């Protein structure tokens, strides 16, 4: 009897999902905590013309994607609060997708890959890509551990952190570079348009279920990895796209955690009303 692990592409897919799940879960936790989830979304969009443009000039789309997201990440980090302007962001994002489309127009041979860049194609990942993902993942996690303490302080109380001497612009820009690389990794699994599913849904769920940073990060990682694993298995069984299952399970986890928190808070609220 053949199992899911008899196929090399399935093994690679599981490796990739594990690596990217760990990175997305950890980086996503701080992204949600900082209220910057838009950044993950925006960086992925900006990466699209990077991927298609790299294809146009004969470079690896992953390389082009990563370069574009890092540059955009530094831009968002330096702009700080000024990057929160709705209309400007929307225009930059549409312009990015438009440019990506233009590059595709000039390089039609790449057009068949456009869907993969937009929606991900985890089943097409080579062992070589898995190794690149792993190396980048180690670098991201090491850097995250290094900046986690001032990052946490600056996320919760930016003005107080500034007063206490935390270099908040440096910390937030470094973090945005980590988000950029993590986004490029997540795009390999779920594509440019669905990055939210891996970067934000598990992290937001974890933040609802935990009250400590270490527990929150570990829960977020566990959720991202398990969601990706189950999605791969379901994709194998149903032949539906993996990315669809990741979005569906991510949404389900988020909704269920909301209900769980409400039902946990209800008895406490009644208790509090009883003894004011």
């Amino acid at each position: 009897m053949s199992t899911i692990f008899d196929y090399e592409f399935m093994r690679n897919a599981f490796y990739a999902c594990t690596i990217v799940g760990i990175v997305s879960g950890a980086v996503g936790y701080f992204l949600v905590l900082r209220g910057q989830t838009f950044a993950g979304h925006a960086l992925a969009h900006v990466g699209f013309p990077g991927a298609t443009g790299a294809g146009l000039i004969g470079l690896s789309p992953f390389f082009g994607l990563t370069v574009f997201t890092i540059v955009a990440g530094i831009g968002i980090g330096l702009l700080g609060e000024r990057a929160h302007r709705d209309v400007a962001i929307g225009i930059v994002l549409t312009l990015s997708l438009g440019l990506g489309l233009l590059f595709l127009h000039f390089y039609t041979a790449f057009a068949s890959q456009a869907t993969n860049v937009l929606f991900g194609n985890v089943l097409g990942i080579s062992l070589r890509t898995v190794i690149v993902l792993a190396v980048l993942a180690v670098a991201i996690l090491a850097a995250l551990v290094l900046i986690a303490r001032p990052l946490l302080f600056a996320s919760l109380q930016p003005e107080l952190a500034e007063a206490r001497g935390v270099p908040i612009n440096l910390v937030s820009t470094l973090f945005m570079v980590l988000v950029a690389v993590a986004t490029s990794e997540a795009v390999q699994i779920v594509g440019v348009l669905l990055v939210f599913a891996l970067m934000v849904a598990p992290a937001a769920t974890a933040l609802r279920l935990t009250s400590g940073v270490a527990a929150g990060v570990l829960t977020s990682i566990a959720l991202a990895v398990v969601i990706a694993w189950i999605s791969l298995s379901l994709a194998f069984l149903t032949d539906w796209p993996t990315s669809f299952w990741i979005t569906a399970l991510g949404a389900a986890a988020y909704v269920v955690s909301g209900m769980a928190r409400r039902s946990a808070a209800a008895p406490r609220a009644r208790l509090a009303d009883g003894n004011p």
Partner: protein
Amino acid sequence: MNAIEFDKVTLTYGGRRVLSDVSFSIPQGAFVGLLGANGAGKTTMLRAILGLIKPAGGAISVLGKPPTRGNADIGYMPQARRALNDVGISGLDFVLSAAGGHRWGWPVASAAEKEAAWKALEAIGATDLARRPLAELSGGERQRILIAQSLIGDPQLLLLDEPLISLDAAHQRAIIDLVHEIGERLGIAVLFCSHEINPLLRAVDRVLYLGNGKAAIGSVDEVISGPVLSKLYGTHINVVRVAGRIFVMADDVELESGAHVHDL
């Protein structure tokens, strides 16, 4: 030694002159209400005391020294800009994030940092909130956690930016009494920023009122008077006292009420 001294200080914010040529001093141990309309420069003044902005003129002295960024002797509670409704962090971890938060590395608290956090939570009687996530706390409870955080590191001076915002009258009273009691117990000066004078009447030794680039300092009766405030607002002001409350009116418009808008 005075906690804060301003000597002919001029402060600008975004190219606009917020304070010009302002002089005053606050002795150690005093509880001072910092008042003024939106944009009068309350937060700008706090940021200058913290060493985050340099005066365009004059000299500031904080606890006998020029202001320096990262001065651990100042406890600071910034104005709340985020509701923190979605933050799955316990009260203890939130307070702890300020202990050694400037160091690099993973946030594992040392024994000394944990002790400092518990001490700060005990000082405001909020140890019962330590284990609960911020998202579950009420507005008044969150405010107590924020004040506890400002007490980390045994400050000699406490700067509180709008701790009363979005609290009801009972919680406002509780927060003021708490801060007043902490200031007296620790013998440290407190600069308490507020839009409204009335909740503060029960506690303040003196008020520092900002307006029109100028400042007036003194007892409530000295500062909250028609002539003084008319100068600060640059328009004719009536001060009416009714049943122990003070109403500051420009013509027929009451100036202080309902000013729950965030300012800089």
